């Protein structure tokens, strides 16, 4: 997995590419937690994501919890396969998906 990060003022965009699974999720978690200083808007751009498992969902969930206390978070460019997993697990109700 490749993790692209882009900071613009208080907004941080994180774009993971490839697979977000049990093996790669800890990397993303580390990347998110280490970059949230002063961030009030967190955007996950999932355009390059091919696969997500519950391990990846947990990273999104814990990020959402952090951002609830300091601003907002949204998920963009969700492809059909990823959207289906969000739907199955009830994440469509938890996350702001655009």
């Amino acid at each position, binding site marked *: 997995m490749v993790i692209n990060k882009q900071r613009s003022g208080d907004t941080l965009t994180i774009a993971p590419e490839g697979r977000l*699974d*049990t*093996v790669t999720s800890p990397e993303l978690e580390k990347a998110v937690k280490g970059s949230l200083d002063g961030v009030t808007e967190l955007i996950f751009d999932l355009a390059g994501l091919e*696969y997500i*498992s*519950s*391990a990846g*969902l*947990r990273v999104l969930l814990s990020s959402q919890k952090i951002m609830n206390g300091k601003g907002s978070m949204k998920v963009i460019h969700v492809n059909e*396969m990823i959207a289906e*997993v969000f739907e*199955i*697990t*009830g994440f469509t109700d938890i996350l702001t998906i655009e």
Partner: protein
Amino acid sequence: MSFLEIKRLRKQFGDVTPLRSVSFSVEKGEVVSIIGPSGTGKSTLIRCINRLETPSSGQILLEGKNICAPDTDLTALRRRVGMVFQSFNLFGHLTVLQNIVMPQMDILGRSAEDARKEALRQLRRVGLDSKAGSRPEELSGGQKQRAAIARALAMQPEIMLFDEPTSALDPTMVSEVRNVIARLASEEEMTMLIVTHEMRLARDVSTRVLFLNDGEIAEDGSPEQIFDSPLNESTRQFVMRVNSWQWVIDYGRTDFFIMMSSLEAFCQSRFMNRRLMNSCEMVVEELVSGHIQPCLKDYDEMRVEFRLETIGDNESVTLTAEFSGVDLDPFDEYALPMSDAIVNSKTRRIPQDGEGIRVWEIIV
């Protein structure tokens, strides 16, 4: 009289006897695939037929003439019997076109112009005419093998032998070579003998399949018989093994990266589409991370054996988990909600009578 008849063929190398006693015949226009475990003499058999190997005993009759006889003209024989190798064997210092032109001039005595015309005709046949001027190193593996097939065809052989034509290829390139071979079989009624590990090639292209085991033919039948209802127990076990992915998980063996890479390689080898492959990977990952791993924390004696099986052209894909060393059902008692939701949405459970076993059908 059959076109090709093999009688009690035996080949021994020192103490090793890869072919013990093989007999079968091939009629004109038949496409016969030879499958079987590694090291059972499949390639040795095919190499005997164009005399790259000399049989220890037995006979090979081509239109009734024994080609194992000491006075056999090998050059004349190889003109009639084309061969495609696993490793392409193209000359790197020549262009694709020159690779096909040269043997025609050397062996058939064709003029340069006739050989060039014929080479271009064959390259068109395998969809590679635009690469005539390229060198082999500029081609993908699949294109190299198609060039090698064109080279063999340019000799106008009466029978084509393929020795593992797809096994050196990246999985994404297997289908282009398979399609070329399938077209030769269906449109041109070329007589072919194919040694392969690739079951889809054997199943889709052949009129007959031979299962070679321990240097003998254990079963000879239609692709449907061999792959769907084999009569011989060793065939049945072999077909089941190549059609399934197996993985054991216990306290010491939970490396996800290795497990998922192995599963992905299996799914690719079965030519699953992206969606089906994703479902298989997700179900296995969630069962392990969301059920088995939490259970292993409490029951380190537990052992789970997974088997993913596909039938036909992935019409049905089932996952079986057999578990032992624990007196409860980890899939009921240790189900993390998110993992459980994903597994339930991607599978249909097939009820089983016994304990310690779960079977799911993967749905897409």
